[in-house]
């Protein structure tokens, strides 16, 4: 959580790739999931407390914070997924059936096998689960769902 929050002003541009994330985003709520198959359950269990947002940490300013935040793997799931079955990693469109292999390649160099999903609010459960299944195929066990804090739009 602090890593993401550390994205401070200079990280603003980084987060524009999420369709739903505003360019001036300074805080993100992250819901880490232990098991993607439990994701549904956990969402509702965790969503309520998370609505109040996590503990806010005023991190010291450090030039390296940008690097840490970019180590996270973000998968963007825009509403256009419904038409073309494409998600985005680093602004690169990737067909859903190629996603497992691409994520597997990325995970080789990561110590934490966690993927953060920036999904459009209009994405339905079926679509969400398609992505979960593919991520699980890639060996990802933790999926974080990213949401904007209330009033942040």
């Amino acid at each position: 959580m602090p890593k993401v929050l550390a994205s401070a002003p200079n990280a603003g541009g980084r987060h524009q790739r999420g369709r739903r994330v505003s360019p001036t985003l300074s805080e993100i709520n992250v819901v880490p999931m232990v098991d993607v198959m439990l994701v549904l359950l956990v969402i509702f269990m965790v969503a309520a407390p998370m609505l109040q947002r996590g503990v806010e940490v005023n991190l010291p300013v450090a030039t390296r914070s940008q690097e840490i935040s970019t180590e996270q793997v973000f998968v963007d799931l825009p509403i256009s997924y419904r038409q073309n079955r494409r998600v985005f990693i680093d602004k690169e469109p990737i067909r859903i059936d190629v996603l497992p292999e691409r994520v597997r390649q990325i995970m080789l160099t990561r110590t934490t096998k966690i993927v953060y999903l920036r999904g459009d609010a209009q994405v339905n459960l079926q679509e969400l689960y398609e992505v979960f299944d593919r991520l699980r195929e890639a060996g990802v066990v933790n999926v974080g769902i990213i949401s904007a804090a209330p009033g942040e739009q």
Partner: protein
Amino acid sequence: MRNMNDIWTGNLKVSGCLVAAIAAALAAAVVAGGLPPSTIARGALSEVEGQATGQAPAPPPASQAPQQPPEVSLVISGDPGTPPRYAVPDFVALSPDAAEMARTIAQVLWDDLAFERDFYMIPRDTYATVPAAQSAAQIPFDRWRELGADAVVFGTVRRTGDEVRVEVRLFAVRTRQQVFGKEYTGTAANPRLYAHTASDEIHLQQRNLRGVARTKLTFSSDRNRERVAGPIDNREVKEIYISDYDGANQRRITTSRQLNINPSWSPDARALAYTTFGPIPDIFISYLYRGVRENPTRGRGTNYLPVFSPDGTRIAFMSGRDGNPEIYVVNVDGSNLRRITNHPAGDTTPTWSPTGTQIAFVSDRAGAPQIYIVGADGLNLRRLTSESHADRPTWSPAPFNEIAFTARTGPGYDIKVYDLATGMTRRITFGEGSNESPAYAPNGKHLAFMSTRAGRYQVFTIGRDGRGVRQVTREGGNFTPAWSN
């Protein structure tokens, strides 16, 4: 295999001659298929390589690694900090009866390239998302890019009767540029060899690495479950076998129905030296391609554990001819016998340094068996290890300067490596079964060893970093592997 040089010189040998010569094999019989199909010729695809066409460069001598690539060529790199990602889709069968071969060659090439772990090999079951190209012009680079590939292999196989023509090209996905292209022709006897050859050449060109895809293993095996014919005692025989480095093409070499154990390769990989328990244990050399078996010790005393010197002219071995086990060196033709060690305790299992100037061996002169080294002239003896029990040293090839050995680590044994520069010992295996008798691959990056981790003793290979264990043998019990150049 050294005789694969025929590929480069374009010599065409008829494998039938080979068969005839070997059919006359005495105790050492080699089945023709155990030898590489020798009719592969090599030609550069003229439109392929921007560089040297026509005369193929001779392969650099395998004994010196690493080597310079024979020609300047484009090297495919991956993302910073990651190995380049390779895809090897099925080759295109240009004749209907080549379909199976096209699949086999692609799969074996994938395995070969994966073995050195210098590339990230994209799993072949993910290629279904990419449309298959029927020609190099059709390669869907965008789709390979989407799958994360930095390099993609395109290959074709054409079969005309028994003649096979295999074309292998390597493309950089980003630039869509061909960086490697070779054509091989030969028989259909061993399609895996086309893949092995291409793999070694790609490793050399792209990574300046001497791959081991064409090397072979030898080991002794009791798989045929015969009983010893002689009067020694009623036990199962062991015979010497060879196989490809990946365990394919396993062939029986000795047929003497005796205990044939501890084989080692000659540096040119054309002969095996081993111990045979006939009336008395003695050393024999089987010349695989001549079908000849020789006895360099000429039946004097009991002789065990022969190992060829790196130049192939001498054999170090252990003999009890002077009353207790000592290390001796003799020329391959049986001349110039010299005793290297002289101690009332037992000295055994010699191994040569890569330069042939030193010999490491095991001695129990200090109580428990430990590894010692001594000059090939018998001088400058010193002790290396301080284990509870150390056995079976094998000296690594250059550029590594280390000795792998078997060490007791509890109820069983594990493989350890002694670094001669630092004097430090590290472990390769960690108590999964008993792990014994290490042998280095010619590039020093891998070790073969025998282990009980899967039940009976079987031959496995492992990276020198202790990763990437592969089981090579499965039939019967298989012991004391050695790795060819």
